[in-house]
């Protein structure tokens, strides 16, 4: 029995009087794609924020490849192997796409104040290596021609792909994608879904994603956890989950939603 790359157990988060997450648990096995879905306000992004250590847990634990990572700081999560994207985009607007991607490689570099200031050969070699990696990732995601632009001149769909590319540059153990196709039209959405799938297949990258778009989730995910009001109401393969009466009820209607591109974010 192999260790899950990501194991969250009894995640509980309370904001004042509201219980955002109530004993949520699931495992993500290596190389698998796991989706967390649920109606607006169900607590999906909160799950991400606890894994990234942006929000403290009131109860529960997060283990990454067997190592406990909760209760630490955000950068320690990242160093442990968590790479994530943000629902509302966390790109740095004063930087070019290439610089944003280079930041993704930050953790894997070593050049500090002295090495940079003196431009030591080790720093120069490292910089060259990282730049080459950024080039490769950009090619994989299909944004090579955007590298020198600033993110303000990009379309929303392109920005989301840059966000994905940046997370990939971190070479994370687990990739967290926060609504990767939100706000995209069907064509962009299909392209993005395809990119995520091919990355997962090529790199065996364990992926956890939060999404509204049912079609996307059903076609992509190996396993699904459904949240409602912070509680788990279903957990399992997509076909099983979509027929679960509790899930259907929570969504008040057909689980297949082709109009997700017009949905508002949580």
């Amino acid at each position, binding site marked *: 029995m192999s260790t899950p790359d990501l194991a969250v157990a009894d995640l509980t988060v309370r904001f004042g009087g509201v219980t955002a997450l109530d004993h949520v648990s699931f495992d993500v096995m290596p190389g698998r794609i796991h989706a967390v879905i649920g109606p607006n306000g169900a607590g999906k992004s909160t799950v*991400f*924020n606890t894994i990234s250590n*942006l*929000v403290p847990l009131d109860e529960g634990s997060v283990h990454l490849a067997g190592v406990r990572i909760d209760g630490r700081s955000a950068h320690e999560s990242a160093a442990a192997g968590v790479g994530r994207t943000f*629902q509302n985009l966390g790109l740095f607007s004063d930087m070019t796409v290439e610089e944003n991607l280079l930041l993704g490689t930050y953790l894997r570099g070593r050049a500090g104040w002295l090495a940079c200031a003196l431009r030591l050969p080790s720093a120069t070699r490292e910089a060259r290596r990282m730049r080459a990696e950024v080039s490769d990732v950009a090619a994989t995601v299909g944004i090579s021609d955007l590298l020198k632009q600033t993110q303000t001149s990009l379309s929303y769909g392109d920005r989301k792909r840059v966000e994905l590319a940046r997370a990939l540059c971190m070479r994370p153990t687990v990739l967290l994608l926060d609504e990767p196709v939100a706000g995209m039209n069907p064509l962009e959405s299909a392209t993005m879904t395809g990119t995520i799938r091919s990355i997962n297949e090529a790199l065996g990258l364990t992926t956890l994603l939060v999404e509204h778009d049912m079609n996307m989730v059903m076609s992509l995910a190996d396993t699904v956890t459904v949240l409602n009001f912070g509680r788990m109401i279903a957990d399992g393969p997509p076909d099983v989950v979509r027929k679960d009466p509790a899930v259907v009820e929570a969504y008040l209607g057909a689980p297949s939603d082709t109009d997700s591109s017009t949905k508002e974010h949580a």
Partner: protein
Amino acid sequence: MKELAFFLLSGAALGGLYGLLALGFVVIYKATHVLNFAHGSFVLLGAYVVARFSSWSFWGALAIGVLVTVVLALLAERLLIRTMAGRAVLSVTIMTVGLDIVLLTAARTEINTQLLPTRDPWGDKQVVLLGLVMPQARLVALLVSIVVAVSFFIWLRYSRWGLAFRAATEKREAAALMGIGLGTLSALAWAIAGALATVSGVLLATYPYPGVNLDLGTIALAALPAAVIGGLESAPGAIIGGLIVGIGQILVQGYQEYLTWLGAGFHEVFTFGLMLLVLLVRPQGLFGQKEIVRA
């Protein structure tokens, strides 16, 4: 014992003034997250206008002074702040530094080394209170500060605009839903700060300053620690911070013979020293809130 009482009362008076000055900063910061470094020059300007017209009528001059600073504040808000909508608050704050420099330089050429009296009705008279002989000016400063502060809080708590102001500073989207534009709120905050500036300036020109001179332009900076100690987003914090700082400063000055190790004239930098101590222990200030992370 009498000495201590005297110090406490004087300290409260000075603290009230610091509180009003701090409130001027906090009101704008609450509404816009910008620190208005030009507040000091507004204080000077308001007091100067009052001094200029005071030979006609003190109260009339006061009214004109308030009008001038409120108009100037609204102009600044509309012409400068509004054009920088959406920009980083740090940039807007630096812009207020520029504004402060412009206004103070203009003031320097006009006022130079003059000392202008404000011809206030309470003058140099002394008054006896609880067995203490105290300049009337200090008492007035204390009373007016209390009245202004209380009025502000009543307004904040019970009026429709006050409620909107509080709401907007907590949650911007909610304010917009209430039909109150964020632009209007910004203008309101600046107008209030402008009015507070003149009132503070006039009071300061009677105590502790003997009149209106250039120093008034920079005194507001000394109140910044009070605002920070209270918590930059807390209006009650500004007043309480002001009192703490004012009383502390007078006490340090009064008992400086016991505190020689702190250096001569320490009371002048006491506010800043206290602020650094508070920030070391509680970075958000006494009544400030720790930032909640929302990704």
